[in-house]
Structures are given as structure tokens and as C-alpha cells.
């Protein structure tokens, strides 16, 4: 089921912002109801006859604007960006307990959008960033023939004992920009843009509720260690795969990129310069160009 609705602002960030920008209005915001009965918000942009691609956001949620996705649409792609349960106004997160639930929900949303083999159409290409890339890889590992190309931007999902990943659940709000961005000032602006008035109790409460729902839901696959044994299943991914990595990703440093390259030996890997974990927000043009080249080749 699909219902249209006016343009809306996506959810906030670890800092709780709702960062509206002109680019957000490039999106149509629709609600689809999956066969399981979860209402899911999806941002859609790009030419209606463009090749469909589905983009899955990370644990911060959409930060607003989504300039990278707009740039991708300008390359002729029809971009669908589902909002994960817990990150939208629906309360579907109570039905999501674990990685299998996330992965199946991702597939269910694609089916509800009228895309992919379950609708008699070609397998759809997937883009995932951070937690969204972790889920995208799981979706493809579960059903390799159900999806086309796979683009993973700084995926979570592996754990290297010699390189323990910073625990995002102990980070204080002011620490996120430095952890997630190459340019801390840019990160601070993106994460706090729109801003929460910490002198307003109601605003604080809204922030706490939103943050609790977003990262609480993400915690079902990221806490206490963001490893749900995806490494056991990556061998199933034979789809054309692109790995994109910021050259200054402090959350997932280079050994993680190397580990993914090892696990997905067929994958093409590209480095985004002057970018941290949030490369799609820090270098949207570079990321969109790399994705467009890969997806349209």
C-alpha cells in the first residue's frame, strides 16, 4: 500500500536535530505499509522512469537535505530512501528485534514500493551507509538473486579484535562530530543544524524521545558490539559490489575497509577524500559520482 503525503523533514541525528534544507523539498515523502503491517516512511526523488535504486540510511538517520541522494537523482536514477522503524513517526520498531527482522523489513519495504522480483520486476540495486550498509549486506546475503548491484558506504557489521570500534552508546552528544566527520566544524553544523534549544524542557524531551527511539532501535543490531555474524554469510554475496570509504573514517578505520575487501574479494573499492564516516554528507558530490558511475555502468 502506498500513500502520498506532503514533503516532510526526515528525522534527526545523534544531536537530535531536524535539519531542514532546501534540498529536502526535492523529495516526495510517502508511507508504505509492508505485508507485515509496518508503516514505513520513504523519501523518493528522481525521474519516474529512472532506474530504481534503494538507499538505506545509517544509525544517525537522515540528517536533512540528503544532497548526495539528490545528486544521484540528477544522474537519472529514481532514488527510494526508506526510513528505518524507530527513525520515523511510526512505531514499527516494536516489531524489529534483531538483524533478521531488519533485513526482512528492508525487503518488505522494497516489495511494498512495487519494486523488485516480488513484483515481477528486475532485482533492485541497493545502496547502504553505515548501519544501513550492514543491513543491505545482510539482505543480499540472505537473497542474492533478489537484488542487483550493491554499494556499501563505510559498512558496520564486522568486528576486529585488534581494532575495537568506538562505542557509540557511550558517546556524549558533543563527541559525535569528531568521531563521525573529517571536518568537525562541518559535522557539528550538520548534526546540530536546526538545533535543539537545551533551555526548553519540551525541546529536550522531544530530543530524548527521538534519540531513544533511533539509537534504541539501532542498538538491537549495534549494541554492545556491532557484529551480528554477517562475516559468516558474506561469501553468499556475488553481486557486483562497490565499497566506498572515507579516507578519515575514525569510527571504522582502514583495517575495516581491508576486512571488507578481503571478505568480498570481487568488490571494487574506492576511497573518498577528505571524508569521515559520514562521507555521503561531507562529500556528497564525490560519493554520488562514484555511485552513479557504478550503478549505471
Amino acid at each position, binding site marked *: 500500500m502506498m500513500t502520498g503525503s506532503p514533503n516532510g523533514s526526515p528525522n534527526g541525528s545523534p544531536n537530535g536535530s531536524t535539519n531542514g534544507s532546501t534540498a529536502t523539498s526535492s523529495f516526495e515523502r510517502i508511507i508504505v505499509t509492508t505485508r507485515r503491517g509496518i508503516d514505513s516512511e520513504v523519501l523518493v526523488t528522481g525521474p519516474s522512469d529512472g532506474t530504481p535504486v534503494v538507499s538505506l540510511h545509517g544509525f544517525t538517520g537522515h540528517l536533512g537535505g540528503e544532497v548526495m541522494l539528490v545528486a544521484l537523482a540528477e544522474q537519472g536514477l529514481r532514488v527510494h530512501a526508506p526510513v528505518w522503524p524507530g527513525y520515523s513517526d511510526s512505531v514499527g520498531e516494536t516489531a524489529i528485534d534483531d538483524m533478521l527482522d531488519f533485513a526482512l523489513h528492508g525487503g518488505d519495504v522494497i516489495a511494498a514500493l512495487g519494486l523488485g522480483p516480488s513484483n515481477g520486476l528486475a532485482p533492485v540495486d541497493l545502496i547502504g551507509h553505515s548501519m544501513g550498509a550492514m543491513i543491505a549486506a545482510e539482505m543480499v546475503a540472505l537473497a542474492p538473486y533478489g537484488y542487483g548491484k550493491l554499494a556499501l558506504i563505510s559498512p558496520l557489521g564486522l568486528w576486529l579484535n585488534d581494532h575495537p570500534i568506538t562505542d557509540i552508546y557511550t558517546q556524549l552528544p558533543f563527541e559525535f562530530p569528531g568521531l563521525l566527520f573529517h571536518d568537525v566544524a562541518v559535522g557539528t553544523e550538520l548534526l546540530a543544524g536546526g538545533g535543539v534549544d537545551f533551555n526548553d524542557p519540551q525541546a529536550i524531551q522531544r530530543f530524548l*524521545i527521538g534519540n531513544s*527511539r533511533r*539509537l534504541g532501535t539501532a542498538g538491537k543490531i549495534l549494541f554492545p558490539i556491532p557484529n551480528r555474524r554477517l562475516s559468516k554469510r558474506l561469501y553468499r554475496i556475488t553481486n557486483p559490489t562497490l565499497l566506498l570509504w572515507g579516507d578519515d573514517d575514525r569510527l571504522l578505520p582502514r583495517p575495516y575497509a581491508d576486512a571488507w575487501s578481503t571478505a568480498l574479494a570481487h568488490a571494487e573499492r574506492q576511497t573518498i577524500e577528505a571524508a569521515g564516516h559520514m562521507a555521503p554528507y561531507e562529500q556528497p558530490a564525490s560519493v554520488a559520482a562514484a555511485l552513479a558511475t557504478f550503478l549505471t555502468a
Partner: protein
Amino acid sequence: MAFRTNVGVAVKFTWFNLMPWPDLPDDFREKNRSVWVDIPSQLFDPVTANRVYNEYMDQLEYAEELGFDGIGCNEHHQNGYGIMPSPNVIAAGLARRTSKAAICVIGNSIALYNPPIRVAEEFAMLDCISGGRLVAGFPVGTPMDTNFCYGQIPALTRDKYYEGHELIMRAWAEDEPFAFDGKYNQLRYVNCWPKPIQQPHPPVYIPGGGSIETWDFCLDHDYNYSYLSFGGYLAGKKLLDGYWDQVAARDKDDSPYRAAFAQIIAVADSDAEAEALYAEHILYFFNRCLHVYPGFSDPPGYRTISTIKAGVLDQLRAENMRVFSNLTWKDLVDGGYVIAGSPDTVIDRMKEMITTLRLGHVFCLMHNGNQPDWKTRYSTKLFAEKVMPQLRNMWPEYDGDDRWWIHPLEDRVRADETMAAARRHPQLPTEAAE
């Protein structure tokens, strides 16, 4: 009324020891980010622990001698103010070395036991060993313990807790083995051996820190709600008022024995002597032992949305922790964090606390921080002899309400007597008998 089964039942006092580590250095706060979760293990010395554990258990036994109704312990992990990851180990020692006091384990964090049938078994063992003196506490657990030390997913912790509770209570209640097909626990044969002496189950206490769901959970099952606070009784009133409002809204009777509250208490000959004797140790507790990294105190998903909406802030939230670290003795006393002073002073303030919070049970935190043994005993003895008798009959209209207290066997085994008798066993050859 149905609960008038034990006339003479009055306000109950349980002597509680958090078991803090006594040797946190003066610059602990400056050099370490947290007393909990990632406290440096180099600060722990097993040889000191040999002395400290035994001293603390001696104190608990001493409290029974002095007439405290209960002696209490609780569960914390990787924690410099509570070196009791397994309260059941402490309780087992107390069960053997005491014979009258309730053994209050407040409690076992159900979601951390895999499977939680372990709690049903160990609590039943404690109830049997003690002759029916167990008070069974079932905390959800703090984020520090539950999420960061023991790795439970914040958003699923409460759900797992509820399931564990259901399993334990069924395990105690059912007479036949049964299959339990839970979301977190699948057990084909649940068959709790042993069962507790107290039937249908030992009194259940639910320690809460501010989650309003806990109030309804207590009222759904008629459990005691225990507010374990370091913020003192003045700050605790807001939360207890909320609880009593909910009691009324649920049309339950307002027996004060439905509630328990933990309070730091220190008694001396005079108010001035109390400050002279205890201030440094209680300040050690507030300034060092409660130095918890804010990033550990409230992971997203741990608190429910309704609790956030209610605006009831947990005592261990970061902003409260920062307040703790800068308190002076005057702040502590004036703010009700600590009830300290002469017996008369303490009586007055305890009466105020018991009446305004409507308490039938008080957990008396009487060993605090790095307080030496002699001071702890001095304070405890003064409280038992001069304060406690003046506070017993605060709730005459609920005299006899023992719904939330132990019902031990009258002719229960007393370990000191049975050990002596065993040494004189008539069948033993003379040379083998003592």
C-alpha cells in the same frame, strides 16, 4: 482486615551494606572517568578484599545481633562502590551465620541470568538454608550493570526482564515440569529444584530508580516498591508521591508496607560529633564512589518513552551525578541526602521521612564510603538502641500488615546449634566426637 495476621508488625529496618571499595585514591576523580564499568582493575587488591569482605559481612551479622529486622545486599558489576557482583554468595554466608533477620537480596538482575531459572534455584536455596528468611529482590538493573557490563541490549532489557520474571514465578509455582517457549529463553523442562519454603513465594521487592512502569508492575503483582536512592528523602519524595498517586489510581490500599526506601544514616552522640566522625567517609562516597561517566548512565533505548515523557529522572543520570560530586557536608545534611546527628536529631528526621514518604520499610545505609569498622558499629549501635525503638509504631492503622515481610519456619534450623550438636553426635565413637 485480611492482612492483620501478625499484630505487632511495625516499621521494618534493614541494615544494608553496599560494600564500597575503601581505597579509591584522593585523585580518583581527576585520573579516572568512572567508578563503574571501566574502573581500573589495578585499583582492586585481593588481599585487601579478604579483609573488606569479611569486615562487611561481620557488620551485617552484627546488625542482626542488635535487632535489625533485616540485613541487605545487592548486585553491582565492575563497580567501585559495590563489590558484590554476586549478592547470593554474600547471602549464603549470612544465611548460615544468622538465624532471625530477613536476608534481603535486593536483588538479582533477572535479565542477566542465563537462563533466569538460575535465580529461582538460588533464591530457593537461600530460602531453604535460612529457614524461610529470604526477601527476593528483582531489579531491572542499572544501565551500567545491565547494558554496559553485561551487554544486554538497552531497548530489549525490560522485555527480557519481564520474561525472566514470568519464568521464575512459574518455576516456583508449578508442581509439574513444564516447557517454557519464551522470546529469550527456551527451556523444554522447567522443574525448579529446590522450591522456596515461603509459599506461594518469598516476599518480592522491586527496586526502582525512576521508571514509572515499575510502579504498575509492583501493583499488578502486589510487590513491594523499593526506591533505592542516594539522593535522600527530600528528593525522593517527588518519586514516592508519584508512586502513591498510582497506588490510589489503581484502587489499592495505601499500606505503607508497599514501599521501601534507602537512606544514608549516621548517628553519634551529638550533631557535631556526627560531622566529626562521619563527614569524610560520606563525602568519600558522594565525591568518589558516585563518580560515574555520564556516557554510561542513560543509553538510548533503556528508558521507556513513557518514563521520558513523565520527566522522572533517574538518580543516576549525569546531571544528578555531577551534583553529587560537589556536595559539602552541609549540603548533604540540609538536602536530606544524609540523616545524621544525635539520636534525637535522627529520630526527628526519620519520623519526617517515614511519614512524608509513607514508608513501612527502611533500608539503612549505615556503612558509607571508607568508613572504618568501629565507627560503623558505633553508629549502628546508637541507631538500634536509641533511634529504632522510637520509630516502630508509626503506622498503627496498618499494625499487623506483614504481606511484604518474611514468614520463616518457627522451628527452623539454627546453624550454630546444629553444628554444636553434630559434634556431640551420640553414634560417633568417643575419639571422633569433639
